[in-house]
């Protein structure tokens, strides 16, 4: 499908309603892919409990917890897919190396995925599809990120000199190459959250979107407060007991502030969009901090789960990726899920009314609230989404009910696994209904997915 222009988005959302995902695919009858459970390590603010831990350390720890929880010791899993957004080049085989260090069978294959903050959700989608096609019986999806142990590259100047030296044959050539080195070349090149094509950080991009949708400071702080309270309440009633394994002395997400208040949040100064004057509403309190952590999700066919007496929490029904043109200012950087969700729901014959839970990743409170505002806006839905009436209203009592990234933190690639495992458990506890997941990502991308209770 070509969704590169607004025009095509309209056509897609309007015309794809007849297609049913339960239809048989080219290879025959599709079967279901189910979420069996999940495990993550608590998320830690950068420089905290996992300051010395690498991506491989944390992903291995999350895998080991999953193995212990579901008795997967020495088991050959169909495939493990995971990834990290900030990744050392030496970690090219991060997931496979983590599997080799874990208690899984060394005969378990693995591959790495990178789709910025949507990495974790995309690993779930990819493995669920393989299960539905009958290519694998079981899969472990996951993601990890560390901003503490971030890769730091040498400058472009130094890199060129080093490569020239290694190519040089004679001492004279080597010296000539080295003589091209300038003092500024010795400064390291640290990763940033800036968009390569705009030079704006993610926060600065979101600040523009937040201002465009006139999202108030108070509304953002309220969402942040709810996130902390919901997450703390979920920990309080033991909801995470079978979803989280302690690591390095940490047993709860270290960013969580159960006792924060509107007053405390109101005292924080804006950190993004400061040139917007009155429109400067985004603070450290209503934006996610840099975080370290890892998450995993165990997926399987129904047969796999039943034959091993494993729980079936939810079906992975369907998913859709989207992307927007933020480079030319047509749309906000983090708004791709706003477009992807209507297409996904239309294809499945569903509306927002048909959902019992909404898991909208809180990259920033402004992202969530801009998304909700756009879906309620008749003009936007007509011109941008090609819908003859507003896409709909998300019932706030169904939104991120056990907290989300503002409270838990957001180790980029680990967020998808956190959300899928959390939502699957919520659906299973309820015993019926559906949940919608929405994750925005750098590069103007996003992935949305539907889970259904079992």
């Amino acid at each position, binding site marked *: 499908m070509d969704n590169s222009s607004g025009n095509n988005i309209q056509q897609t959302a309007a015309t794809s309603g007849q297609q049913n995902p339960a239809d048989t695919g080219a290879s025959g009858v599709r079967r279901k892919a189910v979420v069996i459970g999940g495990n993550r390590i608590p998320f830690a603010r950068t420089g905290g409990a996992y300051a*010395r*831990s*690498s991506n*491989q*350390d944390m992903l*291995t*720890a999350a895998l*080991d917890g999953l193995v212990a929880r579901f008795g997967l*010791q*020495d088991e050959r899993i169909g495939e493990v897919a995971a990834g990290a957004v900030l990744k050392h080049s030496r970690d090219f085989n991060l997931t496979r190396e983590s599997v080799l*260090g*874990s*208690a899984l069978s060394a005969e378990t294959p693995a591959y790495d995925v990178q789709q910025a903050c949507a990495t974790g959700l995309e690993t779930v989608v990819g493995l669920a599809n393989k299960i539905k096609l009958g290519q694998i019986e079981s899969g472990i999806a996951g993601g990890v990120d560390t901003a503490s142990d971030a890769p730091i590259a040498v400058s472009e100047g130094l890199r060129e000199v080093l490569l020239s030296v290694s190519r040089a044959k004679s001492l004279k050539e080597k010296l000539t190459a080295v003589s091209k080195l300038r003092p500024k070349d010795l400064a390291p090149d640290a990763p940033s959250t800036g968009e390569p094509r705009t030079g704006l950080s993610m926060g600065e991009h979101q600040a523009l979107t937040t201002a465009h949708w006139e999202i108030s400071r108070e509304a953002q702080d309220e969402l942040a407060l709810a996130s902390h309270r919901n997450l703390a309440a979920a920990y309080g009633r033991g909801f995470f007991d079978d979803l989280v394994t*302690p*690591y*390095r*002395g940490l047993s709860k997400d270290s960013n969580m502030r159960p006792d924060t208040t509107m007053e405390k949040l109101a005292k924080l100064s804006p950190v993004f969009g400061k040139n917007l004057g009155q429109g400067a509403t985004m603070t450290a309190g209503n934006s996610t901090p840099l975080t370290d952590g890892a998450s995993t999700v165990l997926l399987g066919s129904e047969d796999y789960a039943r034959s091993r007496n494993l729980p079936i929490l939810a079906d992975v029904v369907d998913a859709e990726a989207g992307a927007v043109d933020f480079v030319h200012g047509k749309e906000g950087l983090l708004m791709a899920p706003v477009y992807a969700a209507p297409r996904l729901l239309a294809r499945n014959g569903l509306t927002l009314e048909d959902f019992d839970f909404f898991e909208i990743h809180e990259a920033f409170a402004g992202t969530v609230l801009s998304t909700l505002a756009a879906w309620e806006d008749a003009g936007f839905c007509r011109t941008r989404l090609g819908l003859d009436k507003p896409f709909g209203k998300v019932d706030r009592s169904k939104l991120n009910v056990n907290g989300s990234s503002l409270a838990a933190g957001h180790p980029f690639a680990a967020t998808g696994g956190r959300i899928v495992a959390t939502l699957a458990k919520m659906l299973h506890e309820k015993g019926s209904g559906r949940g919608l997941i929405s994750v925005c990502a750098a590069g103007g991308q996003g992935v949305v997915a539907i889970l259904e209770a079992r």
Partner: protein
Amino acid sequence: MSSVRLPEIPSLSRLYLAAAGAAAKNRVTGGQRRLSLPAVRHEVHSVTVDVERLTQYQHLLHEPARDVLPSGFIHAVAFPVAMSVMTDEDFPLPLLGMIHLRNHVEHSRPIQFTEPLDIAAWPENLSGHRAGTQMDMVVEVSVGADLVWRGVSTYLAKGVYLPGIDSLRDEQDSRGDFAPPAPTAQWRLGLDTGRSYAAVSGDFNPIHLSGVAAKALGMRRSIAHGMYLASRVLATARPDGAEAFNWDIEFGAPVFLPGTVALSVKDRNERQEQWQGVDYVAWNPRSSRKHFSGSVTAM
């Protein structure tokens, strides 16, 4: 046997200095050696490990960075207590220049890094060796009433012959017979291997730190710590599922730094069986001299 309760893990560098002082004093005074091991055990209670040091150790030795303690790490944590016994005035053998011959460890259950460890060390089995006199250092690590880790390290004081202790007749010298198997791994060990391991283990024995320091102590070049080799082979040979296991290592020719070590790790298992054990051997790929060999087996 009498017990000496130390208030905390002693500083290894201070123990090395004390050992050097004792050696110098002995040379000057020609001091008399005792002919038996002191009947004493040194103990430290409620030792907790530093998680940052644990992580550094796990990264250096290529161990998955779990919350449970690697077996070699426990040896490193307990080693100063053993050293404390060996630097005791009544200890009959000179500590400096002692050669680590072998290790036998029984690791009975996973040990979380948060568990407080009670460590006790004492010497046993003073006996003859064709090249001098050997003895065992026994180290026991307990959590509460549970003995969780027990290690016996055998050391040789080369060239030290004590009256009344027969030196053994020539043991089989396997140097000539060793035919290396196909390697399963190759380690390239840099000059800094000794310094890096010293930083995480606290074992700053000068023969591992630099060529100059090693020459001063009669070595051609600096050599890798035996426990670096043991811990690293354990990290690769022990299957991740094995929770209770025994491991053994016998050291041969020292590994000079920098150097390359060829390694063969062989699983005793046929497929689909309960894990039984792994045998390993390491050698110099150029000279085919054996550096070390041993096994990890299910308990």
